[in-house]
């Protein structure tokens, strides 16, 4: 059956099985490849998107359960001031090595700052613990989030 899902402000039709994870609908049906496949079972965070603003693992989210909730992916992250500021910090601080996990890291970091604009160092650690970076750029991911939290989004 066909589902209608609002993704990045646009209603998209998805004629997929109800248990198909959103990740594979995005990547294979819609050609939106910014959201990454890492583990398939919610352990690594590479596939993180926002569902009604909440960081959610798209590899474990069946399309049939999304209903009228609003999905935001990395492709639209730059539309929010926090997302834009984090993207800029990621580039300026040269956060990444291979870069593959960074879409998930950015989505999770944006959700963190949206609910807690001034997280402590420990709160950043805890909030980001679900996102694996195999290159281990953790120091820089942490510092880029802290920098945006401190400076705010005025210059974004």
């Amino acid at each position, binding site marked *: 059956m066909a589902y209608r899902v609002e993704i990045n402000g646009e209603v998209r039709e998805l004629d997929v099985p109800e248990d198909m994870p959103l990740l594979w609908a995005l990547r*294979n049906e819609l050609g939106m490849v910014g959201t990454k496949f890492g583990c398939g079972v919610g352990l690594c965070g590479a596939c993180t998107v926002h569902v009604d603003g909440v960081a959610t693992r798209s590899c474990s989210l069946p399309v049939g359960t999304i209903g009228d909730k609003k999905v935001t992916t990395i492709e639209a992250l730059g539309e929010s001031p926090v997302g834009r500021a984090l993207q800029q910090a990621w580039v300026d601080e040269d956060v*990444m090595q291979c870069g593959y996990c960074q879409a998930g890291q950015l989505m999770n970091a944006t959700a963190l700052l949206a609910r807690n604009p001034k997280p402590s160092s420990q709160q950043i650690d805890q909030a*980001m613990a679900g*996102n694996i970076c195999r290159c*281990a750029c953790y120091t820089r991911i942490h510092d880029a989030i802290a920098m945006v939290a401190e400076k705010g989004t005025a210059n974004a």
Partner: protein
Amino acid sequence: MPETVALSRRTLLKAGALAGGGLMLSASMPMIAKAATAAGGTEATLNAYVSIAPDNTITIVARNPEIGQGIKTMLPMLIAEELDADWDQVRVTQADFNPQKYGFQFAGGSFSTPMNWMPMRQTGAAARRMLLAAAAERWGVAASSLRTEQGKVLDASGRSLTYGELASDAAKVAVPDPAKVQLKDAKDFKIIGRSIPGVDSARIVRGEPIFGVDTRLPGMKYAAFERAPTFGARLVSADVEAAKAVPGVEDAIVMKGGDNPELLVDGVAVIANNWWTANKAREKLSVQWDNGEWGSHSSAGYDKRAAELWAEPPQSELHKEGDVDAAFASAAKVLEAEYAYPFLAHVAMEPMNCTALCHEDGRIELWAPTQNPQAGAQGIAQQLGVAPDKIAIHITRMGGGFGRRLTNDYMVQAAAIAAKKPGTPIQLIWSRQDDIRSDFYRPAGWHRLRAALDANNKLIGFEDHFVTLSKNGQVPFEASMGATEFPARFVENVRYVQSTMETRIPTGALRAPQSNALSFVMQSFLDEVAHAQGRDLPALMLELFGDREPLPGTPGMGGMQNPGFSPPRAKGVIEKAMQMSNWSGGTPDGRAKGFGFYYSHLGYFAEVVEVSLGSRGEIQVHDVWVAGDVGSHIINPFGALNQVEGSIIDGIGQAVGLAVEIENGGAKPTNFHEYEIPRMPMTPRIHTEFVITDNPPTGMGEPALPPVIPALANALFKLTGKRVRKLPIDTSQLV
């Protein structure tokens, strides 16, 4: 330095006009490639392409694959520096695989920096000289009266021309001899030494398609591959009908492979319009496997066999100096210990994947995340009987490599599946389970060590009986130990002997191959020696190095002469790490510091770890001090520090919790819950300083990793009095 001059003298430059005007400069550097890890001994060239367009953009072709090591940013920096370009006008494009045009295209072994340091700079300097000559002719003045700055040629009166304005004229200038062009004085460097963000980063943070698995082609289908859980197993029969009946599944094909895991192994390919559908349909397959003799293999079995082999005479001798038997016979004290380490997986974040299209005329085109496209092409040619010139490879950016993508079995698999569906592009993706369970693992290894001390506690004898793995009787590179492994050549009587056990567990290079395991064994056992002498490991190391001069060089990569191991450089980083970490000062209650030094990939690293145990006995690493000597320049501090920090966390993660246990001839872990990669909360503070020495710069991808593992193990000994002799660390043995 002699090795780079020798290479640079053979650099050939060719200039030409760009279509539409402008300058195209290609540098060709013939060399003999002897990449020990993967490439084999092949003739190769190392080519650079730089073009300057009339619109003033400078395009530099990135020849080597980018796996996150930063090479796509760093090599162009070398050209841009000597060209005196404005970094903002530089564009970097990824080259396709084309050995005729680009020469040696490879990512591994931390080779790229030492191999490219001089040739890339010479290429940039030659282009700059041609632009100066073009300006001199335009203005009718001597080139020596002109200077360059940020992509412009200027004269004393303040006139200026951009490189873009000069490029077409420069294409007509005689090409200078690259070995004779004046290079910049290091004090004038504006780009080398500057922290420059990765050239792809802006696209990555926007989620743009850039990785191999992001490849999208019209009419593309997705494939998943079911293979035996036991390595070396053969497919007996398969019922694929139920899988084929799943809606969305287009086909399920029995694939018959061979014995070589680097090529196609037996399995079933499921092809669907969505990868999730294809992968899920694997559950409907019914496949009978013949495990043969390999189904009984296990990590526990290897441990047991290693102990048996230690009790037998060794099978071969790797290294001998002095009279070891006499040294042990005369010893006042003998230390003995057994060390072991497990198989490890690479788990690059982007699972193995490759997109392949078999054209109707038999040509095969691939979009491949590969560290070693040449080997991939050779494998496909061998497996499918296709002529190498019928295989085209587009190199994509990779979501990590760590050595896994030096082996290209997944490319062969994708090509073999695509060959069954001519005209249809096929994207093969492995699940994470496939990735962990079908790796080419860091081999496990076993060492029985002995050390002899005389009545004055001097280390007079050292012996290692190394038990390792063989395939068809041969010990692969990654499972071998070099004859010069430290402390060979620094202790009077040394003997390294070896015994092997046959396996079919696929093994391969993992970041800092050999070194990532041998560092733990040797630096931990030497810490035992130092302890028995009543002192600490840095003191023992400094004594062993003494006033020794650098050792003779050895033949290296690309016809280069590698510099020999330098005791003065080793002492430099050891002393630096001791000073940075306040080694001889106090440590807070409940904490302890440990030390490790290792030399690999031409880089010298000394590291100190400060550790405590948490309330549940868990290991807490608080601080790591890193002193590294990789030569005269840190070309891109951003990239260099990223590599150090990544290596440190990677090494700690391996020591604390990573192992691929072999059970029933297959790998036991299935996903990240059973193979626990470090996460942000366990990140220590990492303090890095580079000791700058007058040596050509060398690579950063690997050498910072090895010493952190023994440093952690030695810190735990200091803290608990318990020796860590087996990885990963079993914290229950520390209390």
